[in-house]
């Protein structure tokens, strides 16, 4: 059986470059006999997290908002690997993708534990998917690239994936397919 990979991405209608990268990712994954499920968060109805913590105290593990934010969380936790891809904004994901990520809080427990010498939340589920983050830039930008790398490191402390990978791709790169293949290959093994 191939791996189940979920790809969450922001709007492609206004971004042909993003659209092309997603198509390249699809091709790579499908030729390795893995299954890819694509979530275009710009087409989903995702309200912002309300900060009510009901997903920890009232309906543990589930958000009280009934919209596609729950679909994203469900697909996230049931995937072998999750690819998060958007334009890099201020060193992080863009707002569309971040609305979706903010709704992943039900997947962890409210309780604290010590992990890597810091306080972090305890896991709700036994295993979490591999985390693959792909950020797109118009042109190289050291500051944004450094921030984006730190973001994956911090996300990994809270979502505890077994493996992480990252690619930062600029529009002028001429080896995009190689970069993508290198980023994805470890997550498609075990086929």
């Amino acid at each position, binding site marked *: 059986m191939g791996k189940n990979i979920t790809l969450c991405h922001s709007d492609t209608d206004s971004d042909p470059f993003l659209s092309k990268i997603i198509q390249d990712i699809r091709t790579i994954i499908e030729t390795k006999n893995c299954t890819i499920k694509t979530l275009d968060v710009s087409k989903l109805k995702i309200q912002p997290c309300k900060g009510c913590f009901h997903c920890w105290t*009232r309906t543990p593990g589930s958000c009280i908002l009934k919209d596609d934010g729950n679909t994203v969380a469900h697909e996230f936790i049931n995937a072998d690997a999750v690819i998060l891809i958007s334009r890099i904004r201020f060193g992080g994901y863009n707002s569309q993708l971040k609305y979706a990520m903010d709704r992943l809080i039900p997947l962890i427990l409210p309780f604290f534990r010590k992990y890597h010498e810091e306080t972090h939340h305890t896991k709700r589920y036994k295993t979490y998917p591999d985390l693959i983050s792909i950020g797109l830039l118009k042109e190289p930008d050291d500051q944004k690239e450094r921030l984006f790398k730190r973001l994956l490191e911090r996300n990994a402390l809270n979502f505890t994936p077994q493996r992480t990978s990252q690619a930062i791709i600029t529009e002028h790169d001429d080896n995009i397919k190689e970069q993508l293949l290198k980023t994805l290959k470890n997550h498609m093994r075990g086929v």
Partner: protein
Amino acid sequence: MSQTLLMIIGSPRLKKSTSYSLAEYLQKGLKQKGWNIHLFFSHQVVIKEQDMEELINKIEHSDIIGIIFPLYVDSIPGPLIQVLEKLSEQKTKRTDQKIFTIVNSGFPEPHQSQLAVDMIKDFSKEYQANFIGGLTIGAGGVIGGKPIEQIKHRSKRLITALDLTIESLGQTKTLSKKAEKILSKPIFPKILYNIFANMSWKKRSKRYGSPDLYQTPDK
């Protein structure tokens, strides 16, 4: 001429939030110094076009912009990013505009919010304003959306740091380095905070009939 501070609050809990508690404390201090203060909530601005227009209009006439928010999944909450995306399309129309930020989180270690501070610094660069500093506040549960004056007894260090911040903003200087240093350590003893925090979730769930907090509904 009096100075103007515009604060954007990035919490969905609006006036019940810790971010608002912090903004309100700064507001009181600077109003006493004769400052004009404007407050906006990113979660309201993104749903009302009129509010966004008002924000853009008021921001042009502000000397300092304060961006105050809770840490969400290690970075800036989605709606606040949306506001910053909109603002960065325009760039500042002033040459001397300044930006500072205060990021609070439920984790006791303040440094967990440093990445979000650095993201606001990156926004400031795109917006072409001067970044004058950022405060990171850990153990935000100690404030818990209460007025800062009410938690004075729990964290004198927080009050000292905020007073220093008001002082430095009042002089339109770079944010007080001393305030940044004070808040680089937890505002409450870490071990005690973690014990209280872990106990509080079970206590809070009692009002909902004490459901099993370890449920795994999605897998």
